[in-house]
């Protein structure tokens, strides 16, 4: 069983506010599922993980111009904007 403190810590790392009731339920549910994951400990085969086989999959890091219309729609979707910018709370 994971502790209540663990649940609070994971919730914070996950950027989730939980109600008292949700936190209690989560302690039980997560413990049960994590116990089930222990099944994987039975697998003893050693295996080497390789990344995508030999193929170049990265593209150039370049910005592609979008239509004015799309840009406006994307900015409009933000809850808080100033001109053409998305506004956020002070970070520092």
């Amino acid at each position: 069983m994971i502790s209540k403190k663990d649940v609070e810590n994971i919730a914070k790392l996950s950027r989730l506010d939980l109600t008292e009731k949700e936190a209690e339920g989560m302690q039980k549910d997560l413990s049960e599922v994590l116990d089930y994951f222990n099944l994987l400990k039975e697998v003893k085969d050693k295996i080497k993980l390789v990344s995508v086989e030999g193929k170049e999959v990265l593209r150039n890091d370049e910005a592609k111009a979008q239509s004015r219309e799309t840009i406006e729609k994307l900015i409009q979707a933000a809850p808080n904007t100033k001109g053409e910018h998305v506004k956020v709370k002070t970070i520092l």
Partner: protein
Amino acid sequence: MDLKNLTITKIHEGLLKGDFTSVELTKAYIKNIEEKDKDLAAFITITKDLALSQAAEADKMIASGKKVSMLTGVPGAIKDNMLIDGVKCTSASKILANYVAPYDATVIQKLKDQGAVFLGKTNLDEFAMGASTENSAFGPTHNPYDLSRVPGGSSGGSAAAVAANECCYALGSDTGGSIRQPASFCGVVGFKPTYGAVSRYGLMAFASSLDQIGPLAKNVEDARIVFEAISGADPKDATSGQYILKDENVSLKNLKVGIPKEYFIKGMDLEVEKVVKEAIEKVRKQGAIIQEISLPHTEYALACYYIIAPSEASANLARYDGIKYGLSKTENELLGVYLKTRGLGFGLEVKRRIMLGTYSLSSGYYDAYYLKAQEVRELIKQDFKEAFSKVDLILTPVSPTTAFKIGEKAADPLSMYLADIFTVAVNLAGLPAVSIPCGEIDKLPVGLQVIGKHFEDGKVLKAASLIEKLVVE
């Protein structure tokens, strides 16, 4: 209009012959939705105006005598986690309750190019996380075969809509069985293509290494038509590949079919096992060579999946932060905005999975969970590779049970996860697989799963269409 017996092929013929127009047909579907959806709740949004204007456009194209596609003027429905420009897209989440899509998903663009008609957006488990459609923030969808039961999930709205003739076909997405299991529960065909065969651009990401878009339809032929329309490489999805339907020349005679012994397990419904085995027997009688095979790591697939999928989800769903779009709660600090917005906006199962993923990826547990799961995933892939060196196709059940009651598993996440036991391994290995109806138990449908090799989607569909003729009277 006899919507029940209409397929894409029949609609196409009817439109060309002038038996009916796309506008008439679309109105008939909308009427049916308005009558039935009060009970089913298969749709989140009905796009009546869009559908009628697309239908009018299709009628014009047909009248002009220009060459049209099989899907021109055919009314379909789209799972509400794929973007249609200008239409609300919620992923059945409160966090996106008022979000309007700013562009088209690639699959939507492709269907529009074919002259498709979109009737609306279908219900799902929030962010496609679930096996019953009960995790929708807007309430569950009901199974058309029995309204007290679930339609399966997460593409439950799409499956129910096709089964109830609320549309001719629908798109779903499948991360761990989310097309095949609801297709099985609702008695329709559901196809999960090879990973990479269909672009995921414009599909709200859940677990990017597993997600795949595919069709739900009344028969295999229709599923194939939709698949052909939406597949292909897309520069906007680096994991998509160019794909040509091949391996058409399939006959059941001498076809080597593997039956994995690990898919007939203790605890599965004996009646389901019987119906599936009867279907396999019919395939044998056509001259197929049926052999027992072993996929030895099958019992670890579910644990493996429920580590990898939530891990990817925990990263993918970080974008719902109250800053860029969707619900936003005002707080004094940035962290407060995140915590409150996400705390209020996400449902319980989504929170559970984000937390499982965060836990599995956290330093100290990464090796024991995430890395271990990646190793097991590789072993599962090797199991299939080994099996496909001996057989052409694999047949299994889709789900250990028929549709269960609404509320039956809702309070117990682990028992809900077990509903995915026969479908997740296919996603982990990236293989194509289709669910086709193969019988009924107490008037509830049972599905048969046909699994093939990578990019042998054509072979899977061809074999499935032959088997379909044997099992459906």
